[in-house]
């Protein structure tokens, strides 16, 4: 192989290595574990000092919304009956009220409350409403 070709190959390998390094670095600093409520419960204190993302179903009767200061609190529950209190500050997505699954990202505090810094709603297939029969 000619010298020029060698240089090209080495250059290419450097680029690939750099991209790999960036991905590794980005991954190290910003990956978070994604748990359901009961999985988080099982991990317990192990999950407390790191960034975690939790998905759950909001118990609608527990939702408290302070519209003036944008503070929200509610309780997640799941099928097994596990519950998790969540505290969040910030604007709430419009689809929150109709959402089935809500995802929060933040830290699980030693007070047993999940302090969320991000709250989002995931229902991608829900661009469709269901028609139900209403007899009038």
């Amino acid at each position, binding site marked *: 192989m000619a010298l020029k070709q060698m240089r090209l190959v080495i250059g290419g390998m450097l680029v690939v290595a750099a991209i790999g390094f*960036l991905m590794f670095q980005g991954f190290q600093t*910003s*990956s978070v574990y994604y748990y359901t409520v009961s999985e988080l419960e099982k991990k317990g204190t192990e999950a407390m000092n790191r960034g975690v993302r939790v998905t759950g179903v909001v118990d609608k009767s527990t939702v408290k919304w302070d519209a003036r200061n*944008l503070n929200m609190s509610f309780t997640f529950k799941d099928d097994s009956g596990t519950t998790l209190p969540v505290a969040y500050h*910030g604007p709430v997505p*419009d689809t929150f009220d109709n959402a089935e*699954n809500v995802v929060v990202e933040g830290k699980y505090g030693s007070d047993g409350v999940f302090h969320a810094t991000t709250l989002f709603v995931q229902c*991608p297939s829900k661009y469709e*409403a*269901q028609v139900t029969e209403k007899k009038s």
Partner: protein
Amino acid sequence: MADIGYLLIVLGLAAAVYSMVTSVYGVSARRPALVLSGRNAALVAAGLTVGAALMMEFLLLTHDFNVRYVAETTQLGQSLYLTITALWGAQAGSLLFWSTILAGYTISVILVTRNQHRDLLPWATSVLMLTLAFFLTVLVFLRNPFERLTFIPADGTGLNPLLQHGGMMIHPPNLYMGFVGFTVPFAFAMAALITGRLDDTWIRTTRIWTMIAWTFLSMGVLLGGRWAYDVLGWGGYWGWDPVENASLLPWLTATAFIHSVMVQERKGMLKIWNMILIVATYGLVIFGTFLTRSGVISSVHAFALSNLGPMFLGFLTLVLLMAVGLIIYRRDLLRSKNQVESLVSREASFLLNNMLMVGVCFAVLWGTIFPMISEIFTGDKITVGPPFFNKTVGPIFALTMLVMGFIPLIGWGGATTEKFLRHLIRPAIATGIGALALFLLGVHQVYALIGFSLCLFTGYTTVSEFVNGTIARRRATGENPFQALVNLIQRNRRRYGGYLVHIAVVFIGLGIVGSQFYKQEVTQALSPGESMQIGDYTLTYLGLQQDSDLVKQDLYGQLMVSQGGQQVGVISPQQEFFTAANQVMTIPAIRSTPKEDLYVIVAGIDTQSNSLTFTAHINPLVMWIWLGGVLLILGTIIAAWPAARREPAPVTEAVAERASTRI
């Protein structure tokens, strides 16, 4: 009527399958009559599909609520444009829309190329028909858009409020036109592999289709960002959501493709690579359609319901195996005649650009599907958010910008490093001065300064191409400067159109760097008469206004905006309440200037204290992203416009060319 619609897609499927089989058999057995029959059947299949879409529009417009799809996406009082666009407002309809656009491309391709490429066209037709048949199969067997309800509801539920926006008219059609359009170059690539005609015929034949698809996809991606910005209310235009990523992935490989095919046309190199890129693009289009349909990414647990997933993955696997198999089978014919001679050459820089684009694509794909992979292999689901994408993709895009800046300084075939460095002096000095000026103006964040400097550098070298070319042409022909510029572009549309797109990317880069590094956000509760500060703006809450129509109720929080003590106008962020869907929509008020956007939402309504809580953002330079979008279309149209005649290179142009390339 709904049953006729269903019949149309069933017949369409039959015609597509017939066309596929007949084309393949006809061309293999050298029976021109069968080939002709296959081509006609393709036109029939496409026509039937378009007919089905028209039938769906008829049902939507006549509010035939007995049809489930109509009842779930429209309602009485819904505006005309939303009723029309409801065709792509939900799953079944959007798959029909996908098929319809493919049908449109099929008809255009067959009509445009019917008398050429007698060997390639039957194969390409059968690949187009394979894709159409797949989508029609999904419609016929899994998601019948014409399904009837057992009763007739008095009214429908209406389109999802998030979709009730002007963006609905332009964003999805653009994206679909882009997505589906890449089926055409893919089909011709497969035809080239099958027939073994691996010169650049397939690339030249499909160049126009690739450019059309690329332009629409670029617009689709940008319009998606604009729509999110205008509607979602969080102050940003890109959130690295899996669905957004799905639209970006094929754009990246397609961008690499339109660059590297130039290397093949000029130098006969990178043949395998081009095949891989177009196969990847097509694969990512199908994958993206699958991602957005199945919901598999956002929540692995909740979407076991969707039976579309296995169908799409099965089809994707089949097509990829077929394509990769063909590439391996033809590997000898795909060998390059030439090699890259110099590191300082266009070929090498295009190669680097390719690696970077594919690198970004890989990183984004990895970040998007990692939660699934990690769950399969470790049992723990690990996910990455926007920081991962920003940290990984940001530097790679920065490097891409730099490479783009080098392009005008490097010619085909290569130059000595010495020469290259000599041409680098002026842009480097200009960039240095610009960076210093920015620093003195208060840009102190290192990454922002690097980002802006790269934009400056690329902007400088690219604009210089136009300036030097115009000057040289003026000297040679005596035309006035404007005439000289127009003729310069006119004589070499592909090249200068491409450079215009590069300038557009510089605009977009400026907007992204500005808005990523210098955004501000303030949240405050205000009673009427009170004000809040953000940057040099003062926002005074004047009072609440209300409004309502059949579909929704609107609340406006009116704000007087003052800038540096001067009143500049009233803005009204809104909350809309959609009665049927029982959903709130937060609509931001945006005051846009070239320097920055003031972006305000109503984040909370406190009825007890009669106050509204506003969140205000300042997003610097965002307007440049949209301006870049407009320039990008213009540049692509110039570059893609078919040449009216074979262009001879007159002496003057050769002079201008040499003067502007300088190498």
